[in-house]
């Protein structure tokens, strides 16, 4: 496996790999999101308690679970960067943070817009909402630190530390609805075994979720390319590539 992975520690190989997968991820994301959102907004049944406000679910839940998934990915990249001193890991951390921040913001915003009609309030300082807000601040911290240092290597190290320390927040978000009394409802989809929802609602959710996941992959690859270029701008392969593209 190491032999197979080894070439991808080389920025040039990885740059071209991301370049190649972007159109595939992009098209997958576009078509899955079109199918999923039309299904979710027009054809999925309304909830027996929440009526059509339930349709916010198809954006809120994928955004929230991806906001945590992206953080986990970012933290793993940070760990690899610290253990093996891979410069590409720093680029991955820097590429993932803004994407995660946007998904966290969407989760928080749609949660507020769903909470207002269902709970009667836009916001409460309870465990689930507060820990998700902390997640947003962690992302913003990683972004700010990456931008604060002129020296990319130092920035990467500092950002990785924040990213790793923040991992403690993930189980807190995940289990907040079980550990504390909260307005937020418990898990609907991720219960082990059968999901606690009807299949007519479950399948459009799966399609939406995959669509958003491929969206994350597409945007992350674009940002990853940028970060690789910025960190290798004086290498011969970047120079040759730029000259080729300028033709």
């Amino acid at each position, binding site marked *: 496996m190491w032999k197979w992975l080894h070439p991808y520690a080389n920025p040039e190989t990885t740059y071209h790999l991301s370049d190649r997968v972007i159109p595939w991820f992009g098209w997958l994301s576009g078509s899955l999101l079109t199918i999923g959102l039309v299904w979710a*907004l*027009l*054809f*999925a*049944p*309304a909830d027996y308690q929440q*009526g*059509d*406000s339930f*349709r*916010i679910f198809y*954006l*809120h839940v994928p*955004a929230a679970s991806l906001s945590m998934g992206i953080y986990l990915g970012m933290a793993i990249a940070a760990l690899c960067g610290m253990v093996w001193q891979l410069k590409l890991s720093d680029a991955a951390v820097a590429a993932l943070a*803004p*994407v995660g921040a*946007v998904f966290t*913001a*969407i989760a928080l*915003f*749609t949660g507020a*817009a*769903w909470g*207002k*009609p269902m709970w009667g309030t836009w916001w409460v300082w309870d465990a689930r909402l507060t820990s998700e807000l902390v997640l947003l601040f962690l992302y913003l911290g990683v972004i700010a630190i990456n931008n604060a240092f002129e020296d990319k290597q130092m920035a990467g190290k500092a950002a990785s530390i924040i990213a790793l320390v923040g991992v403690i927040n993930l189980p807190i978000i995940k289990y907040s609805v079980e550990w504390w009394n909260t307005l937020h409802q418990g898990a609907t989809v991720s219960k082990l075994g059968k999901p606690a929802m009807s299949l007519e609602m479950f399948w459009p959710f799966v399609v939406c979720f995959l669509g958003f996941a491929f*969206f994350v992959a597409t*945007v992350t690859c*674009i*940002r990853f*390319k*940028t970060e690789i*270029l*910025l960190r290798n*701008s004086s290498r011969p392969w*970047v*120079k040759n590539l*730029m*000259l080729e*593209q*300028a033709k």
Partner: protein
Amino acid sequence: MQFDSITAFLDMGGYGFFVWLSFGFGLIALLTLVLQSKSALKRAKSDIAKRIVTEQKQKLAAQQQNNHR
């Protein structure tokens, strides 16, 4: 199809404002992210290209100065 008319679809059983507020925000946020990511890549490429051109010019100028001596 869960809705009889466009109006019913937009109304979302009375929750129209909240549903469209959510999806509107999501759409704007994701679009902004894509456009910003693409323009950042473009900017990085053009910055690097500019630097290469400047470096080449400097090299050329240095060579010419050497030739005059």
